[in-house]
């Protein structure tokens, strides 16, 4: 059986033919669309390295079957910056040393973008840590990650206020 699915990936329409229904969104991005920024850590939902936004919500792409997501709008780490201008979450991770080896970082950043959109954490570091607990970092860069998320959130809120004003 073969399936053809259409996805919007980082703003671009992509049609992909799948010969096999077993392909996950993670494998589709990495192996078929050559978007290897999204990482495969555990491949079982336990580490968050594969986090992407699907229709604006952060999910683990390793457990999402691609065939089930025909028509979805996908944002990966490759689609976050605007040209050379980093997204505020990316900039904040650099400013606060939110990583060491960098393997978990695309997942952390996409998760942070999702968390900020969800708007549940506020400026409470404990709520940020809880909201980011689906992303493990083997280098233990958690202190910097929490700082980066808090700062990016403040900057994004300021930018929103300027837009309204």
């Amino acid at each position, binding site marked *: 059986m073969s399936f053809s699915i259409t996805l919007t990936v980082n703003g671009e329409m992509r049609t992909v033919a799948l010969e096999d229904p077993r392909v996950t969104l993670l494998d589709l991005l990495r192996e078929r669309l050559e978007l290897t920024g999204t990482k495969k850590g555990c491949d079982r939902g336990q580490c968050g390295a594969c986090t992407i936004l699907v229709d604006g919500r952060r999910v*683990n792409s390793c457990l999402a079957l691609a065939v089930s997501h025909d028509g979805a709008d996908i944002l990966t780490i490759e689609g976050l910056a605007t040209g050379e201008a980093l997204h505020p979450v990316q900039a904040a991770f650099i400013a606060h040393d939110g990583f060491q080896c960098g393997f978990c970082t695309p997942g952390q950043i996409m998760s942070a973008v999702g968390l900020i959109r969800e708007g549940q954490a506020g400026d409470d570091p404990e709520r940020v840590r809880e909201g980011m607990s689906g992303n493990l970092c083997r280098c233990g860069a958690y202190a910097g990650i929490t700082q980066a998320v808090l700062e990016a959130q403040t900057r994004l809120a300021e930018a929103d206020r300027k837009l309204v004003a």
Partner: protein
Amino acid sequence: MNTFEYLRPATIAEAVAAAAEPGAAYLAAGTNLVDLMKGGISHPTRLVDINRLPGLDRLEHLPDGGVRIGALVRNADLAHDPVFARRFPAIAEALLSGASAQLRNAATVGGNLMQRTRCAYFYDVASACNKRAPGAGCDARGGENRLHAVLGWSESCIATHPSDFCVPLVALDAVVEIEGRAGRREVALESFHQLPGNTPERDSVLGPGELIVAVRLPPAAAKFAAHARYLKVRDRTSYAFAVVSAAAALEVDGGRIAEARLALGGVAARPWRARAAEKVLAGTRPEAATLRRAAEAALAQARPSGENAFKIELARRIVARALALAAAGTPERVPALPASPFASVAGAAVHA
């Protein structure tokens, strides 16, 4: 992972017919099923994708005061629905204590009820497991079993049901609406999951092709809104399954408990309703000695299934703590940050 036939039916009737065939399974978000398929624990030959079935993603507050939660409502959407969270705070708190934000964004109500045990030997296909391969034996009995059941287990299986969501649901008398080839039926959540007995391979009462369409809470479930908590102890602070958990819901009138609801998680193959403890509490004042007596009643039938006797005393303490937190009142912010059982003062800002 084995390959499979992928079907995406347009109606519930087509889905039920397609899933009634031997070897078929429903696919919701796949956060449990795809994991089990990758590990070779489940190998359905046909997946029936229910994600686009119409009408299953609705949350309806019913005219009689009850609420009907469609099987495809995502765990995060339910927990963050402000009206739902205000009326059923312990359910929101339980949902938010489960898995991670990413998983909750995907995971569905139906999939959460139907998720399978986290027994490590069930997951390890090289081990003997009666649930995975009936008659094979149970390697958990002589193995690593500190997290296994202390209530309702049998010689053939000592696994627990891992859901957090189901624990307050069972305390609040939730009902499961099921669609099958013979039409619709309803089953109380309390008798939806099966105790292992001699057939641990059967987790629930669902027959071939039966589809969960919704979970319903009766109007009375909302009367506990001012005094309801979910408390979960884990081996780490977040993103871990329960070692033991408890949902406590009280109706308090003039300082006395008019009615109490109590259920435990992580202790049995089903979310465990503790009716004997509810009786102890009715009509009393929520004082420490009374809460302890209720906790003892809740665990009266408990016995270790291995190296897990500690879970019995732990469960008593978690029950008493959950009841104390519920008596102190639902926190102002709903849903609260999942409460830490290690906070020193019951009722204080538990995440400080």
